[in-house]
């Protein structure tokens, strides 16, 4: 298909030089073209083929994965091959950009530019046709729906983060002294592996409500009725406290995360320190509050901030449990609703920018901590 670059290398003459240069040039053009063409044909094929049954679908899925992963690798191989054929000085100059270039392009397209573009959109009206200045921001901070979302996110932060950290500490300390440490930690950590949508189904089932005449199939109402209460629709109860029933889900998921980190930190406390306190007559509660807690203070703060970021961006749980009804909207669900349901792009962009501003300080703090701890080595 492609002529080998030096096949015509005969003893002398300008013709040979020309042919060889021309051949090289042809190859240099052909390789990227063929690569690109292959990828495009693959994309077209995968996009337009509609599978008749699941066997075909499985085959197509496999092809798509090979196309995607192989395509990404092919781009690097082809580009590098190209650069390595250049004179050595140019190879040295250009090769670094083959390595970091794709990452920088994608980061620019997906994160850097969107930040600027979202800010720009936030200064415009719902369709982007008219410049409105800071009006969207004023609306966000004055309209009832957003104030409700801010209030709810505050509840998420206060209850979600505090209780996850508390339970995480409790389990870490208890497990440290138990023979069943591994098993207990595994089971408490397990919800971390489940999607928030899956967790939504699990907890919807717990909160399920039936009328008083029929048997309750939701665990919470079954217990409540057995204790003599009337069946309740827990997530639609008195606002804003119904939010707590959603927050429970995040506590259920994040306690495991907190526990694992605390557990590692507690194991790092020198045993002599604790033994010395025991000899001096301190009881277990004193040891916990006077020695352990101050010792792992840094870790407690990091875990808390991490969970705060997580709760600031909470979306799936609310979406699946209530869809934002009954006064349970949060920042991220309002963003989704404004951007994609109401098609109010300017307003949604303003919400996104506010979310960014809320996350940045906490993230910066976290990153600094992370760098100090070198958690990933």
């Amino acid at each position, binding site marked *: 298909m492609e002529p080998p670059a030096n096949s015509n290398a005969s003893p002398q003459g300008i013709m040979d030089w020309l042919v060889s240069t021309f051949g090289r040039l042809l190859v240099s053009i052909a390789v990227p073209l063929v690569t690109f063409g292959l990828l495009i044909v693959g994309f077209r094929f995968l996009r337009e083929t509609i599978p008749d049954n699941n066997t075909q679908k499985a085959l197509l899925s496999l092809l798509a994965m090979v196309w995607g992963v192989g395509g990404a690798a092919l781009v690097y191989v082809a580009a590098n091959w190209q650069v390595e054929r250049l004179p050595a000085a140019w190879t040295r100059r250009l090769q*670094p950009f083959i390595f970091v270039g794709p990452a920088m392009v994608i980061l620019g*397209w997906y994160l850097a530019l969107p930040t600027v573009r979202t800010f720009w959109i936030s200064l415009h009206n719902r369709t982007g046709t008219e410049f409105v200045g800071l009006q969207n921001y004023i609306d966000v901070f004055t309209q009832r729906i957003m104030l409700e979302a801010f209030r709810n996110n505050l509840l998420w932060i206060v209850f979600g983060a505090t209780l996850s950290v508390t339970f995480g500490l409790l389990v870490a300390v208890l497990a440290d002294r138990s023979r069943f440490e591994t098993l207990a930690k595994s089971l408490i950590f397990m919800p971390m592996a489940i999607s928030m949508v899956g967790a939504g189904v699990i907890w919807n089932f717990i909160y399920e409500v039936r009328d008083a005449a029929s048997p309750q199939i939701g665990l919470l109402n079954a217990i409540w009725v057995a204790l003599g209460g009337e069946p309740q629709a827990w997530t639609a109860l008195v606002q804003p406290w119904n939010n707590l029933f959603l927050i429970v889900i995040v506590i259920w998921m994040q306690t495991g995360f907190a526990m694992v980190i605390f557990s590692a930190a507690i194991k790092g406390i020198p045993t002599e320190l604790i033994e010395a306190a025991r000899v001096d007559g301190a009881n277990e509660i004193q040891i916990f509050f006077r020695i352990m807690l101050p010792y792992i203070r840094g870790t407690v703060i990091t875990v808390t901030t991490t969970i705060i970021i997580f709760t600031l961006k909470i979306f799936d749980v609310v979406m699946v449990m209530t869809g934002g009804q009954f006064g349970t909207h949060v920042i991220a669900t309002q963003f989704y609703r404004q951007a994609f349901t109401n098609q109010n792009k300017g307003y949604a962009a303003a919400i996104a920018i506010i979310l960014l501003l809320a996350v940045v300080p906490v993230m910066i703090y976290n990153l600094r901590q992370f760098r100090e701890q070198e958690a990933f080595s």
Partner: protein
Amino acid sequence: MSAAKKPRQGKLVQDILINGTLFLLVALWTIPTLGVLVSSFRTRFDIQTSGWWSILPHKEWLLVEEFDIPEGLDPNSVMEIRGVRGTFDDFRQGIETPDGKQLIWIGNKRLGRIQVQELRWTMRTAFTLENYRQVLAGKSFELQTPDGSIITVQGDNFVGAFLNSLTVAIPATVIPILIAAFAAYGFAWMRFPGRRLMFISVVALLVVPLQIALVPILQDYVKLDLNGTFLAVWLAHTGFGLPLATYLLFNYIKSLPRDILESAFIDGASHFTIFTRLILPLSVPALASFAIFQFLWVWNDYLVALVFIGAKPDVQVLTMRIAEMVGSRGSDWHLLTAGAFISMILPLAVFFSLQRYFIRGLLAGSVKG
């Protein structure tokens, strides 16, 4: 040492207290999932009429005898049947007999029957795989109704959704790792103008929440006609995962001993060869930790899929399918529980088999923006 000084009994009490509290917490944390797992194997009828815990031994009114309404009774006044007296409404509610049984009037006033029920120990253990069959099935599925007839219903095609989830998750894990590893190597071991600035911007982008990007990227996708394709979702996940992946892999690759690189250079190897033959194999622990984190993140993701796949049913991933079911058929618990469990199988398998890597990946991923 100090424990030996303490009385044995105090130690025992403390042990029971610790393990007891721990057991209680573990139970609280496990029961919600257990309930869904158990329910997914129960019949539709059982789920709708009793809590999943009725698979455990419990007392329940069970039918022991049934007979026709005795002749000559006036349903509009107080009646006496088998020694108990009551109005029609009382019998409809059920009246307890002196010997601990219960009489219940089934049906209307004229065409009724009387059931005799007794409170007995029982377990509802009629388990079935039917829920899974229906959820997994594609376009049509044959279902036997309680009266024995066979009806054809629409299956939920979770096989298709499962395949879609895999098709999204695997490339959306491998591609960012590939790109990030190249970039990390470039930043760690190559010299070029703008290196510092570029690396700082990668770290800076760690703080950007992905919500920022959704509106502009969707606009681009609509223009490029990319919406609803796997490529669109892969690229989005790649973009959102790259800062973290690059940062973590940079830290790891930077810490590899420098003499490996130098001796390879002296042997005449190019950067590309060193990277593929030397650095990638050496970085497997870091790559694995991040891969597991990213894979679970993508597999469990709902928002990105919702925005970039949208309403295309052929490409819908599991999380979307389940969320949709919650909205449209929220009380079909026999299907919801089975569906939810299908979506959890893979993450749970990954979790239990690769727990160490999983935890490391999660800890590292905790700074994801």
